[in-house]
């Protein structure tokens, strides 16, 4: 039966770009074990004959013509940005001067 420990939970949180305090993490581990136990019920289904590379519905590749078209106006897209500068998304400095 799959189980998760607090260190794995911390690693998952980091992968998810989420922060939890110790109490939240402990509670999370408890809940997660219950969830995983339930998820594990899929193991009982025999899938040895299943080929995942076979065609499924809507599997026809649909290509569009490669044409130049108007898309969104820069000002409309930037309007939702928490911070912008000169029509670009603004982020904190990631490379310091002189580096």
């Amino acid at each position, binding site marked *: 039966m*799959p189980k*998760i420990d607090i260190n794995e*939970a911390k690693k*998952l*949180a980091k*992968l*998810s*770009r*989420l*922060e*939890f305090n110790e109490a939240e993490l402990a509670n*999370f581990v408890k*809940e*997660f074990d*219950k*969830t995983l136990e*339930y*998820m*594990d*019920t*899929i*193991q*009982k*289904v*025999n*899938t040895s004959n*299943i080929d*995942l590379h076979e065609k*499924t*519905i*809507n599997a026809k590749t*649909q290509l*569009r013509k490669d044409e130049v078209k108007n898309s*969104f106006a820069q000002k*409309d*897209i930037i*309007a*939702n*940005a*928490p*911070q912008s500068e000169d029509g670009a*998304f603004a*982020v*904190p400095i*990631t490379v310091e001067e002189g580096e």
Partner: protein
Amino acid sequence: MNYLKMDLWQVREALKTGKITSVELTKLCFKRIKETSNLNTLISTCEEFALASAKAVDEARASGQKLGALAGIPIVIKDNINLTGTKTTCASKFLANFVSPYTATCAQKLVDAGAVIIGKANMDEFAMGSSNENSAFGVVRNPVNTDYVPGGSSGGSASSVASGQCFGALGTDTGGSIREPASFCGIVGLKPTYGRVSRYGVVAFASSLDQVGNLTRSVRDSAIMLGVIAGKDEHDMTSSSNAIPDYEKAITGSVKGLKIGIAKQFFNDKLNSEVRSSLDKAIQTYVDNGATKVEVDLPSLDTALAVYYILSSAEAASNLARFDGVKYGVQSKKFKDLVDLYFKSRTEGFGKEVKRRIMLGNYVLSSGYYDAFYRKAKRVQKVIRQEFEKAFEKCDIIVCPTTANPAFKIGEKSNDHLAMYLTDIFTVPINIAGLPALSMPCGKNSEGLPIGMQLIAPHWKETTLFNAGDFLEKALKEGK
């Protein structure tokens, strides 16, 4: 004449024959929204836009112009559907101030058909939930009994239609998010075949399972709305170019020769006895009117929910990775550097259930677990699809309950996420198989709470759902 109690098709006739104008009707809806504000159905309204649309339809009608299928009819859309200039929050703190820079194809089709969009419906955050208790804008109440949940995640859409605030609503259904709230609120909810309706402009939860559909007060209304929103869209490569039948014409008034599939897996011992007896009566009505009953077998059905939570969480974790606090949405004020900005913004912006799904999704996708969970779930998904295909060799439609129990009380399951997930046990298999399904009322329990019946058809056979659904709806009314 109480117009707000009318079905969409009835009010369409009233508008056509000039008994009421769209402006009058729209004003009645806004009055109703104010009177029933305790239900908390809508996150935002667009009164000015709505009244201008209504006026334009009235003028077009007066000048004898050809009008669309929903001309002048007030409609609500779920708040994960973009409509230019309106807030599209997905009921998340993260998007509390997000203003749509474009319109989703399904919403544009409503507008092109003359519909009057009056507001954006409350929902579970990012469509993750079965009770509408996971909304950053507060819980939605069930108009049948306000102590009860309306279901989720399209709870605002369902409550709005059921309380007479509008004549139809758009919702989205990834694992039951249209059918479960429709069932809890005593209305009709349709989840079309995957690919029938474009998802362009709908905020993605689990892209391979998400499908836009509608919530209405009658089956005929559902057919009318699907006819408007269905179709190929160059912006959504999974949308289908299959011909769109005249769904309303598919309603024939007869179920003679219809083969109804019954799978014992849907009628297990956990099924509420009042739900069971309502279903038995409905099935008997079909049989009494010339349909036949056949037994079908769906042996892997009980694993569909686990498959669903693995696949949908995996896709959600990937889809929600775009919420970084840079391009749109909430940006934390307390970050040290760029990576910390991602951590802080996401931690502050997302609610508990959304975080839980992201974590679960990243778990099943991470090395060491990918094969055991994600890949295995994809394989089981295929087994479930094959079982449905085999079942439909013997029948035209499968009938089952939408949920094992009627609506539950607000707060009753909010601390037990697994119990909450189990609410969707009969609806998720349909998304897993990409099939169309319709939930419709088929009775009430002793407390007066609605009981929902689910009709499932083979891919692209929404026509069968509408014909069988409409038949039962009329039979129940007439006591056939």
